């Protein structure tokens, strides 16, 4: 027995001492995704897929400039050197493509690759149609009707209607290598040996466990030559697992540390990086039924929420108050009449005007579907309990119905019908990266399901008119001004209970240098280095 124990001790110690030192210049990231995002071109796992796989391995024709923190990322030339809308026929766009760019497999990038990629996500008849990738990204490319090769380095994009939103959609179409596909002739196999033009290439793919990227030393843009040799991406859906992995030195960087660990992490010398980005967390209201069919009640609800309290006390400053779709300082914020600050007295006053005194006569029971967890949902249970308490304080009774994240997304798609007939609010988070995501899908009458996700439904002729005008305005400054008007209108109509904007917290070891958090869901990993 003694000998056995002795053996165990020795074995344990030798295991402990044989520490696995990591390679130099390797950046190891713990993602929140439950799995490795799809590597076959058009990523799944939402924007986290674009962030870590899509925009690192592949590139669109137009890139986001992710090098600054203080202003929104601009659209800059990517695989296209320039683009312009045809003056003769504004439904046609000409893109001049970059020359001397090579895919990871060594084959050249050209107009054929762009047409090939477009067909793979939009043309069901094409032999290389990717049903899965198409479903991930097809809806984002609504304004791209056809792509034609003009010459080897020029393409023409045709749109169904005049649309200035084309560049905002082109950023989601990641160009894949036709040569590599020709070798494997199957998207699943392609995903295991992918080939794009991005600054990183896939060198090791262990399904469900890890994805290893290596710097693409043949990358065309010297300014974006990766500073690290290798990036290792590890899916870690459990927040406590991510935290333990960071603290035990298994990773250098984790996405979204648990908010209550932030003080402790700072104390232990870790960097906590946050910034505003187009994320919105709130309740989408059902507008055709009591109590939310009354604008006064909706405004009352918005004045009842203690947003500062939620961000400070519950989320340790990992969010900022949200008083609209966009945040203050965003070009689309505009100058709304109402700034929803925490004002219970004003809230009660508005309820009184709406015919509810808040004690004997309270707004009819409102049922809100919420999730127990989920991508971008932050801490849904605790946050919703605070929202519920705030509303109860002014005299609005909300019944929370927590369901699991997968069921919530499914029931969100269904809208306030069928199973959801008894529900009149739904808590879900969104991005507002481009005009369609921010406004078009929610606040245009043509987006009422099944076309898109205006489930409330929000039907407002002025909003429709402004959105149509914005889509026809090619001057970006003017377009921003029109969208700001849409925003002012939406804030005044209060079709949502606006609550907070997430700050996308990340925790890193002090060795991680050079990361600039952009106001974006996406990041540029090329500028990041890991000190020895």
């Amino acid at each position, binding site marked *: 027995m003694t000998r056995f124990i002795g053996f165990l001790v020795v074995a344990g110690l030798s295991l*402990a001492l044989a520490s696995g030192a990591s390679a130099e210049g390797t950046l190891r990231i713990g993602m929140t995704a439950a799995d490795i995002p799809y590597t076959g071109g058009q990523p799944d796992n939402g924007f986290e897929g674009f962030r870590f796989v899509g925009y690192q391995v592949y590139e669109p024709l137009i890139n986001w400039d992710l090098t600054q923190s203080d202003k929104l990322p601009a659209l800059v030339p990517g695989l296209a050197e320039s683009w312009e809308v045809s003056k003769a026929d504004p439904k046609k766009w000409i893109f001049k493509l970059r020359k001397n760019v090579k895919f990871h497999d060594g084959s050249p990038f050209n107009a054929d690759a762009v047409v090939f990629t477009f067909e793979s996500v939009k043309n069901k008849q094409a032999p290389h149609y990717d049903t*899965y990738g198409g479903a*991930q990204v097809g809806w984002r490319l609504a304004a791209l009707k056809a792509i034609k090769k003009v010459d080897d380095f020029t393409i023409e994009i045709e749109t169904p209607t005049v649309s200035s939103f084309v560049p905002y959609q082109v950023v989601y179409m990641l160009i894949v290598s036709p040569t590599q596909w020709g070798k494997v002739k199957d998207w699943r196999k392609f995903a295991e040996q992918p080939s794009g033009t991005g600054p990183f290439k896939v060198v090791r793919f262990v*399904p*469900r466990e*890890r994805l290893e990227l290596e710097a693409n030393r043949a990358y065309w843009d010297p300014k974006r030559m990766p500073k690290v040799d290798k990036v290792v991406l590890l899916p870690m859906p459990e927040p406590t697992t991510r935290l*333990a*992995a960071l603290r035990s030195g298994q990773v250098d960087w984790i996405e979204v540390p648990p908010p209550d660990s932030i003080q402790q992490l700072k104390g232990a010398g870790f960097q906590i990086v946050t910034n505003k980005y187009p994320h919105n967390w709130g309740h989408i209201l059902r507008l055709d039924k009591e109590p939310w069919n009354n604008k006064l009640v909706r405004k009352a609800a918005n004045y009842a929420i203690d947003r500062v309290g939620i961000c400070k006390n519950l989320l340790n400053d990992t969010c900022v108050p949200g008083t609209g779709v966009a945040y203050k300082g965003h070009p689309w914020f505009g100058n709304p009449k109402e700034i929803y600050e925490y004002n219970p007295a004003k809230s009660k006053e508005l309820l009184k005007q709406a015919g509810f005194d808040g004690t004997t006569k309270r707004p009819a029971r409102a049922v809100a579907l919420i999730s127990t967890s989920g991508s971008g949902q932050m801490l849904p249970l605790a946050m919703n309990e605070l929202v519920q308490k705030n509303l109860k304080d002014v005299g609005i009774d909300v019944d929370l119905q927590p369901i699991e994240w997968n*069921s919530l997304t499914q029931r969100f798609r269904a809208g306030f019908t069928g199973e959801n007939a008894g529900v009149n609010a739904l808590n879900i988070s969104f991005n507002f990266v481009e005009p369609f995501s921010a406004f078009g899908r929610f606040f245009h009458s043509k987006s009422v399901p099944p076309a898109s996700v205006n489930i409330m439904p929000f039907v407002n002729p002025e909003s429709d008119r402004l959105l149509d005008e914005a889509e026809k305005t090619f001057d970006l400054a003017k377009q921003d001004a029109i969208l700001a008007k849409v925003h002012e209108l939406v804030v005044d109509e209060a079709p949502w209970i606006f609550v907070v904007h997430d700050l996308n917290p990340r925790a890193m070891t002090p060795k991680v240098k050079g990361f600039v958090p952009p106001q974006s869901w996406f990041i540029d990993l090329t500028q990041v280095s890991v000190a020895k």
Partner: protein
Amino acid sequence: MWRYVGRRLVLAVPTLLGASIIVFAMVHLAPGDPIAAILPVDASKEQIEDIKKVYGFDKPLPVQYLKWLGRVVQGDLGKSIATRRAVILDVRDSLANSLVLALSSSVLAFGAGIALGLLAAFRQGRALDKIASAMAVIGVSVPHYWAGIILIIIFSVQLGWLPAMGASSDGGLVGYLRHMTLPTIALALIPLGVIARVTRSAALDILNQEFVLALRAKGLAQRRVFAHVVKNAAPQIITVLGLQFGFQLGGSVLVEAVFSWPGTGYLLNLAIFQRDMPVLQGVILVLATFFVLLNLLVDVLQTYIDPRIARH
């Protein structure tokens, strides 16, 4: 003997069929949608229908079940919805990882459990018995996922000796062994407690029988008495060992989740949240098959040790 094994094997078929029907019904009746998990909320109805068609979810449930069964009989468990890899590959990889963990934790638990149990039985009522029993109770009562978190805090975060998560093969065999140490300990706690308790009571039962008294009266050395007791207590202990090994294989969802150990439990957990039905069905079917085979193996072993059982 062989007829007995044959009969048991035939009986295993309806058991597995039943299990597969229950699994199929459960994963399809639960709220949620396999397609919702993999597509953005804005994906169009048409695209959702297309994907449903690709996976055969557009067919009525009984048809889906029969088609699935038809493929399973030919050894094809279908394709994962989330990764689009053949389920058999996922099952193979995760099963290998879980088997390793099940084996290592079983060796630890069985060895330590039997030793503790026998020690307690032979020193009944004395301090050693109380200590061993207390350890057994702790093993059974402490939730292993909690113990896992505590192990991580102590050995990974504070001391920095062992990795906290994953099964990374980065460091070769040593790396793999380092990764499996903490989950092995966490996973061994419960069976250690169970086995120690069962062994103690089984050994005590035998110790109180008259033949032991007779052996002792004959003047047999304590060592020889011990051997007789162990042999007589063995069938009971083996039954528990078999069951515990089965549990180790399938019952480690929580521990594997805590340590992100890429085994069957982790895969099941992932598949549940992703509503990855082909994976769920595949993993559960394979685990059920393991359980059935393991039970059979235990029964055969028991018959071998104690021929009276075959006659019952």
